[in-house]
């Protein structure tokens, strides 16, 4: 089902016209209502009247994440806080957290983005959805909730955690859709096995997984263990939350709702646009938001984009899954390392994806890379030789993928912290 056929299947020229009209209006709006954007544009010598169509977008200033942190809490809002209906906060690992606000219209926009996404994943009015993203200041839970409400689904507002209860209610209510982080989906499968249940017999037919980057290998692993179609949902609270883009059932890229969230792909070093199909940083402009509209927000997510029409009928451009993060990238002995590469390497061994953690340290002026891998029943053997072989295989696979060696440490299950169902993948102990 296509939720908003007019926008999701619009012709190129028609879409461009809508985007252009919206951008012109937006620039005028932020220039008038946000002192931060006024001074940013003045500094570049750009006036609202210079923006006549979507093609002029490259004249506008970027918005890095630091702009939101520096403006903590409401400095970047274009609306008075009294006119804001809801606030969300994403935890900052360093410095201030990021605060975003929504007017009632913004909540409507967010709901629409998620409603389109759930429908895109194969959901229909009348389906039951188990929302196992965290509810609260994190946008995952409420985002899926609002979208499901708009689409007309029956909602189980579970939030994350209480896994045994999640499983019990799934068995009793038989929801068709599961929405959570991919790592939590794997955790649920693990837990079901421990409870002596067959995860393949779960009622879920569709998974809407996001809030953290995940690979094709992890998709296969989740689909095999839970017996569902695992689709990727993308979003970030700065733009609105989940539902900025979503895979359709063909799983050939995430449809980005470009009539409202305009994407550009740029080279993060030169800031110049890259061609379709070439990897670059995803930059998004919120064309219709009111409370905290952003011009050219630097997501720091590395993707490719295509504007080809999809088999599903949608013309909404498609980005690849996130292949890396400009800030997750760690440089070890001069080599770029992405957690997704480690994930790929682990999947080459035994075809399963264990939970892992990358630890980088500097010892005697040398970078050293350690990968902690959680052992589970499938790979555990009571023979030391078999365990040594496993370790050797992982070591080789990682070296082949990354081009540098890593010390593999086999650790007990649940050694690696899971927060909000979101696994932390890198610890960098180097003081540079």
């Amino acid at each position, binding site marked *: 089902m296509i939720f908003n056929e007019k926008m999701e299947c619009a012709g190129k020229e028609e879409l461009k016209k809508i985007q252009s009209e919206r951008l012109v209006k937006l620039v005028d709006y932020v220039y008038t209502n946000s002192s931060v954007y006024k001074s940013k544009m003045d500094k570049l010598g750009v006036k609202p009247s210079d923006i006549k169509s979507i093609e002029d977008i490259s004249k506008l200033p970027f918005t890095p994440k630091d702009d939101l942190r520096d403006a903590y809490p409401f400095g970047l809002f274009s609306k008075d806080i009294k006119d804001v209906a809801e606030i969300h906060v994403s935890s900052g690992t360093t410095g201030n957290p990021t605060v975003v606000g929504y007017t009632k219209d913004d909540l409507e926009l967010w709901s629409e983005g998620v409603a389109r996404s759930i429908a895109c994943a194969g959901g229909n009015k009348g389906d039951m959805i188990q929302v196992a993203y965290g509810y609260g200041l994190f946008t995952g839970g409420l985002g899926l909730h609002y979208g499901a409400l708009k689409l007309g689904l029956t909602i189980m507002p579970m939030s994350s955690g209480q896994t045994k209860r999640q499983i019990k209610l799934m068995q009793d209510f038989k929801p068709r859709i599961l929405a959570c982080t991919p790592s939590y989906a794997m955790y649920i499968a693990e837990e079901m096995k421990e409870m002596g249940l067959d995860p393949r017999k779960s009622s879920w037919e569709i998974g809407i997984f996001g809030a953290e980057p995940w690979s094709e290998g992890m998709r296969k692993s989740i689909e095999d263990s839970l017996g569902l179609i695992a689709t990727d949902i993308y979003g970030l609270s700065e733009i609105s939350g989940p539902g900025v883009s979503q895979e359709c059932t063909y799983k050939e890229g995430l449809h980005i709702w470009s009539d409202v969230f305009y994407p550009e792909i740029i080279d993060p070093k030169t800031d110049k646009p890259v061609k379709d199909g070439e990897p670059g940083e995803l930059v998004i402009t919120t064309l219709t938001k009111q409370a905290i509209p952003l011009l050219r927000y630097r997501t720091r997510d590395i993707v490719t984009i295509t504007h080809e029409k999809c088999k599903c009928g949608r013309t909404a451009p498609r980005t690849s899954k996130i292949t890396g993060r400009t800030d997750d990238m760690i440089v070890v002995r001069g080599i770029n390392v992405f957690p997704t590469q480690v994930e790929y390497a682990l999947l080459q061994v035994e075809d399963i994806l264990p939970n892992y953690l990358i630890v980088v340290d500097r010892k005697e002026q040398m970078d050293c890379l350690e990968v902690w891998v959680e052992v*589970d*029943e499938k790979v555990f053997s*009571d023979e*030391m030789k078999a*365990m*040594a072989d496993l370790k050797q295989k992982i070591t080789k696979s990682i070296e082949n993928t990354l081009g540098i060696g890593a010390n593999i440490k086999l650790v*007990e*299950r*649940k050694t690696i912290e899971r927060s909000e169902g979101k696994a932390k993948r890198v610890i960098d102990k180097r003081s540079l």
Partner: protein
Amino acid sequence: MKINQISIFIENTKGRLADVCSILGDNGINIRALTIAESPEFGILRVVLDKPEEAKEILKKNGFIATTAEIVAVEVPDEPGGLAKALKALAGNNINVEYMYGFVEKATDKALMVFKFENIDKAISVLKSNGINIVDKKTALGL
């Protein structure tokens, strides 16, 4: 004849072995035999317990990786050459011993040894035909 041994993956961190033993003790499970295979960062603890299945579930609930392996408990004369006789019989019949270790208690003048074989059924018949006594489950588990 065959006895279920529980194998547990443990990290080489302070107190981890104590954790396992306390969990077993708190649940009234007795350790009949035990050995640890070690590497610099982790170990494989193998134990023969009086209530193996119950122990496995409890350990899993406590977050441990625990699996079951079939072993044989063999009575070996506690005298010079006692163990050698059993091993020779096995070697002579191409039976590979994966690992072995001794029981904690000693009830008689014979030592109780735990054996893990590649081919357990063949091993049992070789031991029997060589007059080596295999301890039954009840005796081995102290039930």
